[in-house]
């Protein structure tokens, strides 16, 4: 592609496979209008995308993310589609405050660290111990399994159903190549599953049974100003958790492993000092964070980044481009452990809509990296890495053929 590259071209497969050089071409110019992209939950081929402004600079992205009065998270396109509307992600104040308070009371770091993390550590150790064939496609056999299984445990649904969660998340997030009919059917199956699971819990509650303590039952019980969530809201919370948690983290794990393969000196450094795991994760989130962009809709005219954005215009906040803005992060394409301002990366968003599952993502990645360091002496790439090209939401690997040389 030549230097006349425009935001409208961001959706081509050759860009999706590695969008960063194209972000560089756009970041120095004023924000451009006309990106025709599909937010999560919408269905290419069935829903009609709205043209959007593409914000690429750190300063513009954070200004928009912070200003949630003007940059609304309600998604009229998703609301009009057949897919269930996401909780929190697609709400504004004051509804967002009510939902966020309940979610925060139920979905605490304590629940993740004390209830799920010890189980996660044991489960990952078992996954490495049962490896009979050390040649594997990491994305098919490991990366997809960890987040989906953890999500079943956290929410409190049967662990054996993890594969379903992964497929539903993948279809919902418009990452892989599904037909419109397949995507619609998948969204319906996802909704039906959680309606049944949640309904069973309410029936058990009505029958006076003791409910287990998990995230689903916590969401049912938690009150805000004397009121609890409706049954439908609990269902939609579960769906939001699945599509957000069983998809993005898969790519996060894949991107972590790619870096360990491409830069074996980092694998050696982690082997020698596990206190580097946290800075290693943080720098991966900055440089290779899976989530590329999310959308807002303007509630009033505003001047931002040198352009006039009109009320009703769609705006895409490219967090991934902001993470490689050279005016904030020196040598942004390099992987630098313990980078001075690493905590300013935007992969989990910024402001009240920041990712509530960031603790889960970090916990999963931490347990996975510790598992690799416990069980694997060397990681060899056995064939070519294939990156996903299905959609711009996530930057990540589709096939990662590796050989784990076990200790």
């Amino acid at each position: 592609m030549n230097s006349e590259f425009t935001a409208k071209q961001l959706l081509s497969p050759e860009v999706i496979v590695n969008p960063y050089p194209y972000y560089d071409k756009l970041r120095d110019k004023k924000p451009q209008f006309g990106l025709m992209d599909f937010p999560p939950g919408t269905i290419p081929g069935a829903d009609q995308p709205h043209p959007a402004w593409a914000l690429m600079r750190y300063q513009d992205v954070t200004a928009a993310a912070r200003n949630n009065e003007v940059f609304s998270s309600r998604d009229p396109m998703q609301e009009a589609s057949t897919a269930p509307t996401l909780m929190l992600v697609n709400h504004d104040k004051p509804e967002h405050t009510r939902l966020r308070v309940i979610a925060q009371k139920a979905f605490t770091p304590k629940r993740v660290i004390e209830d799920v993390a010890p189980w996660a550590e044991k489960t990952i150790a078992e996954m490495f111990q049962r490896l009979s064939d050390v040649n594997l496609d990491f994305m098919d056999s490991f990366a997809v399994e960890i987040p989906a299984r953890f999500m079943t445990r956290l929410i409190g649904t049967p662990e054996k159903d993890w594969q379903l969660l992964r497929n539903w998340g993948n279809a919902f997030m418009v990452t892989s190549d599904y037909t419109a009919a397949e995507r619609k059917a998948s969204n319906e199956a996802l909704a039906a599953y959680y309606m049944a699971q949640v309904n069973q819990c309410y029936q058990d509650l009505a029958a006076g049974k003791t409910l287990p303590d998990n995230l689903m039952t916590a969401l049912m019980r938690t009150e805000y100003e004397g009121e609890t969530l409706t049954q439908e809201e609990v269902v939609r919370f579960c769906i939001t958790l699945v599509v957000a948690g069983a998809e993005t983290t898969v790519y996060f794990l894949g991107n972590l492993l790619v870096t360990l393969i491409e830069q074996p000196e980092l694998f050696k450094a982690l082997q020698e000092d596990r206190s580097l795991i946290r800075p290693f994760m943080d720098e991966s989130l900055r440089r290779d964070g899976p989530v590329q962009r999310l959308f807002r809709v303007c509630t009033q005219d505003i001047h931002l980044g040198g352009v006039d954005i009109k009320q009703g215009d769609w705006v895409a906040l490219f967090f991934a481009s902001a993470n490689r803005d050279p005016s904030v992060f020196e040598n942004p394409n390099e992987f630098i452990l313990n980078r001075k301002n690493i905590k300013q990366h935007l992969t989990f968003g910024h402001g009240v809509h920041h990712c509530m599952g960031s603790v889960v993502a970090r916990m999963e990645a931490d347990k996975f990296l510790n598992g690799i360091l416990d069980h694997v002496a060397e990681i060899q790439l056995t064939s070519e890495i294939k990156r996903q090209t299905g959609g711009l939401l996530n930057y990540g690997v589709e096939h990662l053929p590796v050989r784990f040389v076990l200790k």
Partner: protein
Amino acid sequence: MSRINVIDRDGKKHQLKLEAGTSLMEALRDQNFGVDGTCGGAACCGSCHIFIEESWLQKLPADEIEAMTIEGLVHAEANSRLSCQIDLNQDLEGLKISIAPPEI
């Protein structure tokens, strides 16, 4: 400007001279004390958790939303605060804090 005494996660003591205009979280994050500030100051992620000297609790109380976030943290104590909710525009001369362990 306020002089604040900080104990980092390794137990080392520092005295910081902090200018008004930002939050304590931003100052600690920018000076690499290990706080994340993931939510950018919305009091909802708990990743800028600190402990403050007991005698300051009355002067710097947490509001309802902040207290609720703190309640969900693994390392919460009676003197926990979220540093994103402490404004450096007020007089904090002599405040003593320590950085809480990270949640993960």
